[in-house]
């Protein structure tokens, strides 16, 4: 590719469920290495947007490009193999496997082990080492052999992030990573996310404005299935369209949260 490709690019993206159009011609271009928070009122289509990008749904029309390649219509596992990983709003882990096993499952495909049934996991030094590194990164070393379903909620959220980044994807989508966490847990968790996504392109859906301003280089505002603003936080805050469409009180909260930091 001669021209510099965006990490993620959405072009006139539309998605309808029956007669209801959720995404109405969304455009977005995220450069490699950018950290973008997608905000918007409930029902704006934030999660749907993630489901479209990650292949869970296919778009009604429009294009989705990952590093310049069209990915709309591909299966989730095909998109995952191209270097895009996502986490889920509702914790989505392997409950009856240990924390270590969860992470190792996450690295297997990327290391090329695929569907191998002629190799022992115990002998896959690279996979085991990588899983242990991840375990350390998400600070669950002590819970290595605990079944994932027996973890606390915050630990499960951390594991969710661990599985997401395990395959070494360079584009990471986090769907409300701090949902349901306490204030103190949230601030520690933002640190964690920052650490584990260094050098990656990050898209996150977030309600907590403290998290948004703490994490994002740029903010995309999604209202009724359209991206009405996409800019650095200060510019978004000053944007009259955003102030009009989006609840002013939320922005005031955000300013208060930022002042508190």
């Amino acid at each position: 590719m001669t021209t510099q490709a965006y990490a993620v690019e959405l072009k006139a993206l539309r998605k309808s469920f029956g007669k209801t159009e959720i995404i109405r011609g969304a455009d977005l271009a995220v450069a490699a290495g950018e950290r973008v928070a997608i905000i918007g009122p409930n029902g704006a289509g934030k999660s749907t947007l993630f489901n479209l990008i990650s292949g869970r749904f296919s778009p009604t029309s429009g294009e989705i490009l990952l590093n310049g390649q069209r990915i709309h219509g591909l299966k989730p596992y095909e998109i995952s193999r191209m270097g895009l990983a996502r986490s889920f709003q509702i914790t989505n882990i392997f409950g009856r496997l240990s924390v270590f096993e969860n992470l190792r499952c996450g690295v297997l495909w990327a290391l090329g082990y695929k569907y191998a049934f002629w190799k022992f996991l115990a002998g896959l030094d690279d996979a085991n080492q990588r899983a242990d590194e991840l375990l350390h990164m998400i600070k669950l070393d002590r819970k290595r052999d605990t079944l994932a379903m027996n973890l606390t909620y915050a630990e499960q959220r951390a594991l969710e992030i661990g599985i997401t980044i395990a395959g070494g994807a360079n584009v990471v989508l986090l769907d409300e990573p701090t949902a349901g966490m306490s204030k103190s847990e949230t601030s520690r968790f933002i640190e964690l996310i920052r650490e584990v996504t260094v050098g990656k392109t990050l898209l996150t859906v977030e309600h907590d404005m403290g998290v948004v301003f703490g994490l994002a280089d740029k903010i995309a505002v999604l209202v009724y299935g359209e991206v009405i603003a996409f800019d650095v936080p200060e510019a978004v805050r000053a944007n009259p369209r955003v102030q009009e469409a989006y609840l002013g009180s939320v922005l005031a909260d955000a300013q208060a949260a930022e002042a508190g930091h």
Partner: protein
Amino acid sequence: MANSVVKSGPLGRVVVWGLFAVLLIVLPLLFRSSLALTMLSQMGYLVIICLSYNILLGQGGMLSFGHAVYTGMGAFIAVHAMNQATKGAIWLPVSLVPLVGGVAGMFFAALFGYVTTKKSGTTFAMITLGIGELVAAMSLMFPAFFGGEGGVTTNRTYGAPFLGLTFGPQIQVYCLIAAYCFVSTALMYAFTGTPLGRMLNAVRDNPERVEFIGYNTQWVRYLGFIIAGFFAGIGGALAAINFEIVGAADSLSSVRSGGYLLFTFLGGATFFFGPIIGAVLLVLASVLLSEITKAWLLYLGLVFLLMVMYAPGGIASLIMMNLRVAKSGKLARLLGWYALLAVTGALTFFGIAALIEMIYHMQLNEALGPVLSFLGIELNVKSAASWAGTVVVALIGLGLFELTRKRFALRWGEVQGEIEAAIRAREAA
């Protein structure tokens, strides 16, 4: 979970597998009667079949109602291969027939599995049921291959002796079964520790998530299904060698599939060794229990019901939970309760079993007179005292058992709580 069975390091692993091998060798020397040898032979191939079924149920979370299709097709192809070899049309020593069955099982699993594994959960279960019925119906339409009502017979003593083995005497057949049982069990255990084996667990726990870490869940299920089919076919072929006859009504029936499911579950699907227990129980129940009482299927149903309700992890999980308690040194606190449970349970069983036997006697053995002997006690189906006595015993037993069970459940909860707390304290340290 499956991998937690032998976590005691390489030495522990050698001990466990060594014991398994020794057991396979020593058992026929301990139990020398021909009945015992027949039962041991059946256990041998049923261990393979139940373990293969558990690749689906326990490891992959696939509730199949049609596993007999793959054991049965393995058996039929094996029988025809043996008959061809007898005629001299192909070269095939008896010792390799199980592999032919395995390849046949694998082939049909690859064929039908492509459809069944497209879906998971309830849909998967329904499709396996449908394919099971389909194959059973087909078997009636092709009597040349399936042998119609009478089945297909064969003779396993064809060809030159292999290392002095003619496979005429049952003990030699047992040796063949035992050898395949050991190797197949080892291979299936090894499979649980491979990337595909682990991803099968992941698909069981959360198929959706697997799609987002690069894996095609359908492909994972499909490959697991084919591997299960291979071992099922080996088991089926060994059964064919053992009986020298295969009949569609028996080998391919949904009742047979149900039996594999039932006993795999009873043995314990959450641990690798559970289905081995299940296979042993299957033979004990169908050979010994059926000798003792005509109502054996009813007892089996009751046991299955109680297991599903109170111990859904099967016997294997009961063993493992008690091992955990023993490791923490708290088993002594429960032993008294176990004794009480055993006594009250026996009393309940005695009462209920006496009732069942009396009803069966009335229905089936009326011609033999009203008196029957139950565990050495004379009962009379025409006497009110007999009925009243058994009912009273059953009710008293049931009441006492319930009382004991409730108290025991509290103690059990306490002990588990203490163990959990100890684990947490260790993690925090």
